[in-house]
């Protein structure tokens, strides 16, 4: 439905804006050699308001053929045809009306006088069509702008929700409880290590809390958070946990949403290293080139160990956040090989200043 008809309170201002046109149409019809003024007024007022409604039908060809992205020839031909059709109908309506008025004694001979003005009226109809088409294009542009704004707002809400979700999932309780248990163990057996673990845990918590407020952080900062996490886990797992990092200076300055890597590294430990009796090595690779930032996280796992609940949620969360931020531009793949797990991310590279 047409936006003017679809909203109460738009129709009256629209019709009021058409009123001056009635004056112009009157003037056209009452030119010397044309109609008497009274006849012109009597015809012009209903005709103008009839056109006000007919002109709204230009909405459909306008919507079908947006100004940008349509070929010129079909655009011109379509509107020319629509203008001719609407003006023809309008002139026909005027002829019928003047015929009807002619039955009234005061308007005797109107039909004959009107015939001489039909061509002028037709030309006026075409001009009015152009006006109506212009109005409709403006309305379409406004509507598109409003829609884009709505979509943007929706996306912002989505991104925010995804971020909140990751914040909630960020400090996973089992990690805290296990770390506290290790501290409690080390407190009597190895007090210096207990102290070290307290410091590392504090460091990790402080970092992850401060990152939660930001919308973008550098890969370097994100990796520091992962390192703080791994430093705690290393005290728990001892020699079972090895870490290998591979990144260049350029990629460490790229911007990413916060808490992107750390949950993936945590997954690699919980669902990978921790399932293996002999432990293993978590590999984190980051590379920047060709306008893309590529991240690879790889870990071995024991296919003979029981699977642990919870890995799907973390991955899904990262996937959603990437989609909210980069849309189609984000690539996220998680692959389970025979005894290795791979997560690959590719996003547009954004360099920090």
């Amino acid at each position, binding site marked *: 439905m047409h936006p003017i008809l679809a909203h109460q309170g738009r129709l009256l201002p629209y019709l009021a804006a058409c009123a001056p046109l009635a004056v112009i149409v009157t003037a056209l019809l009452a030119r010397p050699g044309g109609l008497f003024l009274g006849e012109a007024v009597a015809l012009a007022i209903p005709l103008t308001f009839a056109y006000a409604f007919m002109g709204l039908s230009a909405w459909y060809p306008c919507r079908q053929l947006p100004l940008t992205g349509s070929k010129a020839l079909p655009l011109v031909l379509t509107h020319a045809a629509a203008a001719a059709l609407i003006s023809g109908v309008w002139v026909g309506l005027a002829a019928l009306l003047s015929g009807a008025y002619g039955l009234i004694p005061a308007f005797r001979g109107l039909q004959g006088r009107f015939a001489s003005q039909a061509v002028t009226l037709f030309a006026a109809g075409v001009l009015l069509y152009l006006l109506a088409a212009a109005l409709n294009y403006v309305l379409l542009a406004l509507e598109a702008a409003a829609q884009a704004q709505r979509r943007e707002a929706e996306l912002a809400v989505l991104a925010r929700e995804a971020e909140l979700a990751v914040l909630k999932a960020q400090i996973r309780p089992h990690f805290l409880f296990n770390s506290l*248990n290790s501290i409690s163990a080390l407190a009597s057996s190895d007090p210096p290590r207990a102290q070290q673990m307290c410091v590392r845990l504090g460091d990790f918590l402080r970092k992850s809390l401060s990152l939660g407020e930001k919308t973008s952080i550098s890969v370097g900062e994100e990796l520091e958070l992962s390192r703080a996490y791994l430093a705690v886990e290393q005290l728990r*797992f001892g020699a079972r946990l090895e870490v290998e990092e591979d990144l260049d200076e350029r990629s460490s300055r790229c911007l990413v949403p916060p808490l992107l890597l750390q949950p993936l590294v945590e997954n690699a430990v919980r669902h990978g290293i921790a399932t293996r009796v002999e432990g293993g090595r978590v590999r984190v690779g980051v590379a920047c080139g060709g306008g893309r930032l590529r991240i690879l996280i790889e870990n071995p796992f*024991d296919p*003979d160990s029981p699977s642990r609940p919870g890995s799907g949620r973390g991955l899904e969360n990262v996937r959603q956040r990437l989609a909210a931020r980069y849309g189609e531009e984000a690539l996220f793949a998680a692959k389970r090989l025979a005894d290795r797990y791979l997560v690959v991310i590719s996003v547009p590279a954004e360099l920090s200043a």
Partner: protein
Amino acid sequence: MTEPGAGTAQIGVLIVDDEEPARSILREHLERVPGVRVVGECANGFEALRSAAELSPRIVFLDIEMPKLDGFEVLELLDPSIAAVFVTAYDAYAVKAFEVHAVDYVLKPFEASRIALAVERARERLSRGTAVRAGELHAAARPEGTYLARVVVRDGSRVHIIPVERLDAVVAQDDYLALKSEGRTYLKQQTLSSLAAALDPTRFVRVHRSHVVRLDLLARLEPYGNGSHVAVLADGTRVPVSREGHARLKELLG
């Protein structure tokens, strides 16, 4: 003056946890409990089963998330006369733990007194002498809406792990189940009802009082007189199908 706990017999305890610091704090607390002797520490489920057989502990303190076999699987394969105490950072497993008749469920981190209490409870259970058949309950005590991912079977000192996607059929034989997987048969002491209840009903069908088959192995059904049928599997094996089993199959296959 009497030593606290004097008069109670020394009781052997085994510690099973894959993290070294977690084992050391348990040992520390346990060694302070009068009458307790820590007989060994294990870092994974396989070791736990081996040590349990060699060292004959009366109580096992068991972590849940471990490599190879999780705590529940270890409990299922342990001698049922051993009392098990779960020690974990996760409270999500508590209900399941008591359904498999764990003596206690201790959350990490813990205080010394909490460990002493767990030993107390284990002693009480042991003195009542009620043997626990964990295997029966383990199968039934899975979280709502999830199904068994693998079946563990003990064969002397060896442990076989059969992922359900490689479990072809199960046949009840007296007190045992014969589990068929890739041409081999494994025996396990369990009832068919409890195992069947733990398997995904869209993948496994109990076609007969003593037969469960994996649905995608079913090649065809043949009438066998008197309203009963015979299911022919992909490898040509013929399995009897009862009237109820036939109804279940028809419902699943549409």
